[in-house]
């Protein structure tokens, strides 16, 4: 039974990440996802210190806000202080991440939270934290429901604001000209990434969530030139990685989240080789475009 919960939770996280990751990739911002996933650490610790538990909604929100602040910081360093974008990312997230690490070691005795858990997650532990109804019936792991709600929000935002995301991703200036705020939608997307990262930190961990944000989207990008199909494929590859990763981990008795990332990378390698071979064949058969 716990096996299914673990796979499902991993899959939910992977699908959220795959959808958002596609937009990050097309915006050439994959590394902003990396930055956010590290920078939420102090948010998690501070909220933990204030609320004393890791189950609370305030903690989620607090950490999520820190993620959004990170993207704000990156934008400010880049736009206002004219620092290069990669340097802006590097400066902001290493600072916030280090702050988180110091906080954890300072308050290690007060909080039931260790670095390993935050960084690498622990899917295997998910089933031990059950959501219980008032009648006393356990209805499944809390992490599963948190990831599920997160995915529903992500899907709702993408479906509702699809054209806003598309236009601001493809052509920022044009969006501005026709009156669609590039800044607003940038922060909406970054908020989604931020909350996804926070909700998944205890299942797949802050570092491996990056793999889910980048790799399935990159794989999908190789295979199609239609955005809707790219989104669907990216979600599918995320799903396959989490299912495949789980069985790989049980077979080798190793880290579940780690195995999921390995499978994601393996799928990318397969697809990459496939497209190389396919291109070689079409170049020979198809007439050159005029």
């Amino acid at each position, binding site marked *: 039974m716990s096996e299914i919960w673990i796979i499902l939770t991993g899959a939910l996280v992977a699908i959220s990440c795959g959808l958002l990751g596609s937009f990050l990739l097309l915006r050439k911002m994959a590394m902003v996802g990396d930055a956010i996933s590290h920078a939420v650490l102090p948010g998690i610790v501070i909220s933990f210190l204030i609320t004393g538990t890791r189950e609370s909604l305030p903690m989620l929100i607090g950490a999520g806000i820190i993620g959004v602040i990170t993207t704000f910081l990156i934008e400010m360093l880049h736009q206002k202080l004219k620092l290069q974008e990669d340097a802006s990312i590097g400066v902001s997230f290493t600072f916030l991440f280090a702050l988180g690490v110091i906080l954890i070691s300072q308050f290690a005795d007060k909080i039931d939270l260790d670095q390993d858990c935050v960084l690498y997650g622990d899917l295997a532990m998910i089933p031990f934290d059950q959501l219980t109804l008032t009648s006393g019936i356990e209805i499944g792991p809390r992490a599963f429901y948190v990831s599920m709600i997160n995915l529903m929000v992500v899907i709702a935002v993408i479906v509702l604001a699809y054209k806003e995301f598309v*236009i601001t991703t*493809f052509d920022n200036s044009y969006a*501005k*000209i026709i009156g669609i705020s590039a800044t607003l939608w940038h922060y909406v997307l970054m908020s989604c990434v931020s909350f996804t990262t926070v909700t998944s930190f205890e299942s797949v961990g802050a570092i491996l969530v990056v793999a889910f944000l980048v790799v399935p989207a990159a794989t999908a*990008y190789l295979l199609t*030139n239609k955005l809707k199909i790219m989104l669907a494929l990216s979600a599918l590859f995320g799903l396959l990685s989490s299912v495949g990763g789980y069985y790989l981990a049980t077979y080798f008795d190793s880290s579940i989240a780690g195995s999921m990332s390995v499978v994601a990378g393996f799928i990318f390698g397969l697809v990459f080789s496939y497209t190389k071979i396919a291109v070689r064949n079409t170049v020979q058969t198809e007439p050159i*475009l005029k």
Partner: protein
Amino acid sequence: MILQAENQVVDVHNLTVSYDNKPVLWNIDLTLPKGALVGIIGPNGAGKSTLIKAMMGIVPVDSGYVKIFGEALNVVRQKIAYVPQRESVDWDFPASVYDIVMMGRYGKMGLFKRPRKADADVVMDCLRKVGLVALKDRQIAQLSGGQQQRVFLARALAQEADLYFMDEPFAGVDIATETAIIELLREMRNDGKTVVVVHHDLQSAAEYFNWTILINTRLIASGPTPQVLTNELLQKTYGGKLDVLSQMQDIIKIEAFSVGHS
């Protein structure tokens, strides 16, 4: 030589724009008439792209203001269309010709709304005008330079605007496409639209535009083309570069030619 237009559509007043504290446009003051095909001409890095971006309000300005149809930009956004410079487009973006042209409808649709039948009709109509119906499902990287340029022209047409800004729409385009595009632009002008085009070929400029702007950071001239494209003003704009001088000989010939025929 800066002449003021009657029936003004664009009014640029004392505009200064700089990047990293380096002025790119200096104290530009000009007006453009309704129903004109306007050429913006100047050497590389003269600030031509920046000028149209400032007119559309997508670069921050140091001083001065721009009025379109006598109003602030935010009020008249729906009446402005834009064809970006080729280099600024992400050609590998997963979008088809049809998808890109549909983006021209996004501004009119409103928040969270989806394209309707009426939008799809406009898109197909614009694809027909630029001759891309057969290629509507192609990804944009898989097109020739001329076809790519026409996609963005169609997107601008789909906006059903009154004022069009185009950044080098003839760059990387074959002669047949260039002729087709200029024909379309003339039709738009005859319908009372105003079309502002950044252009770098002096020879065709005299023939295409009825209003010309010469800039090189400062505004050198703005007025009806025959009064602006003179030896002296071009020299002032280009600073007497040799290849340009030889092109000027040709322009003077074209001028003589068109005078004889009009």
